[in-house]
């Protein structure tokens, strides 16, 4: 399956397979937002069934990525950062998403080149970090191992 118009008529859906083996039918119109998938289809890298393997992404996360892309498509007039932040927060709340989900979403967004999701997700985490009262709070929340020797962090 490809998007090359000389080969066949453009399909309405593309099948994406996540790491657990789930297959997601995703509207072709959303693929413009997923640079990686879009490029894969252009060079016809899918297998003989027309399914594109995305083995780094879990199904739950893939659903959220697709939902996000639909939100962006359906709200194309809402391009202000604050609007997009609100959309992202609502998406997370509906999915009962926690920090783990946000990080996996960012990993997926980076892999799939979904720029809008990268932008809003990194802003979300930056806001969370800003809201932390102390550096120790950031360390605990995001499980950051302290691997800098104490003599290097000693203050004058």
């Amino acid at each position, binding site marked *: 399956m490809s998007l090359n118009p000389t080969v066949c008529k453009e399909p309405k859906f593309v099948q994406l397979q996540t790491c*657990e*083996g*789930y*297959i*997601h*039918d995703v509207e072709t119109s959303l693929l413009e937002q997923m640079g990686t998938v879009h490029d894969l289809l252009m060079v016809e890298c899918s297998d003989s069934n027309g399914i594109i393997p995305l083995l780094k992404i*879990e*199904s739950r996360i893939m*659903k959220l990525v697709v939902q996000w892309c639909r939100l962006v498509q359906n709200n194309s007039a809402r391009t202000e950062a604050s609007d997009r932040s609100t959309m992202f927060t609502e998406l997370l709340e509906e999915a009962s998403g*926690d*920090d*783990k989900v946000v*990080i996996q979403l*960012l*990993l997926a967004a*980076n892999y799939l080149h979904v720029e809008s999701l*990268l*932008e809003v997700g*990194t*802003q979300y*985490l*930056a806001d969370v*970090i*800003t809201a932390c*009262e*102390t*550096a120790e709070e*950031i*360390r605990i929340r*995001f*499980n*950051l*191992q*302290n*691997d*800098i020797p104490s003599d290097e*962090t000693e*203050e*004058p």
Partner: protein
Amino acid sequence: MTSTTDRDTAPTVTSLLQLNDDVLALIIRQLNVFQQYEIGRLNRRLESVVQTIWRTRVRSVVLQDEMFRRSTATNARFLAFILALVPHMQRMCCQELDVRKLRLLSSQNLDRITHLEWLGDSNRRGRVRFVDEDVRLIGRVFPKLRRLKLRNCQITGKYLCDLEQLSELCLDDCQFLESHHFRDLFRQLRLRKFDIMEDCDEVNCCDLVDLHLCPTLEHIKIADYHLCMESDITQQLLRLPRLQKLSIYSKNFVFDVLARIARPANSPARAATLIEGFRFSGVLHDYGRFFQELANLRQLKRLELHGQSDDEGDGQGLQVLGDQILSQLSNQLTSLTELRLCGYQLESPSGVLEFVTKCRQLKILDVTRSRCHGELFVWRCLGILSKQRWRAEPLELWIRQSDIKSDIVHSPRCLDSVRLLRIDAKQIGPSLDCKSGVLKFIFVR
């Protein structure tokens, strides 16, 4: 849609470090510079990301009090933060920072920093105000300082002359300056730019009487009360050998200031002939008188006027420029190469088009934000240009935000006449946000 089977995944611990460096950089760039420092201290990898960002993005840093309000922002940590920034930082701006933070640096030598802005908080009182001793501290801590701006400071000016490397000094809303310190300031420093235009009411014309002792001055920004109308301060300023720009803020004495500089009888020999550019932005009640004075600058090459209105952008309330006064001015200023009349209502196209007829060297005509009677202006301009057989280059007409529609660029008549007239609907002139009430003179050097 999904297929039917389901699979459990083993729970994993969430860590920011699962993200790659590029994504971490996207997150960290959105934090303020102190937060970046703090997060870089938590982990080696984060430290590396912060250093990569800092290598190119912290040449200019703005520090504000609210950045350090968290309980972990101790004095020791602030000092460590500055020392970590210093290898990358060249320009530092302190916006309403507690001056006690600046004083923590008193035993340091930050010789990479060449530009410093101290924008004080007018609400601060007592020991937390920026005073003369803090100027001495700046001299010690930033020995290579070339540019200094001080706002809302309680300084008399006595130690400013000790900043030996200083070439640009701006004093804004410094109400305690004492006149007897200015002589040393002008004599000892090789200043290129001196700016006391904003709210330095205590400084008057007598304090500037020694300005001529600083022959290196290229750009001076003052207010009209710094030019005592009864003395020859103005003439002394105009005699400065390297003067390139003189900006004078005037709320109520615009005509007097202009007359003092433009009229040949008032200014030193040849001073008016050395003025090649003039800019003014503001509201005037008598453009006829204004143009009369302006007409004395016979060698003017660049004229830039910005009108202001009270409206919300629909063009109502713009000041009107009459054809007669424009026509008279065009008879006098025939050397113009650039004419910018931005944000005005023209009585008709005729007045401005007189400049197109009479100024043979005119290259740019800028009517940004003006109401010029639409495309009629363009067609009449083309009519004039088509008769100018001597014209070797097209005239550029800038029309952004005016009442001339931008799609006129694509009209057949304009496309056929591109050798005569090049319309630009995108460019904005260099001074769109210039301060109101400032007369700026630019000198030939």
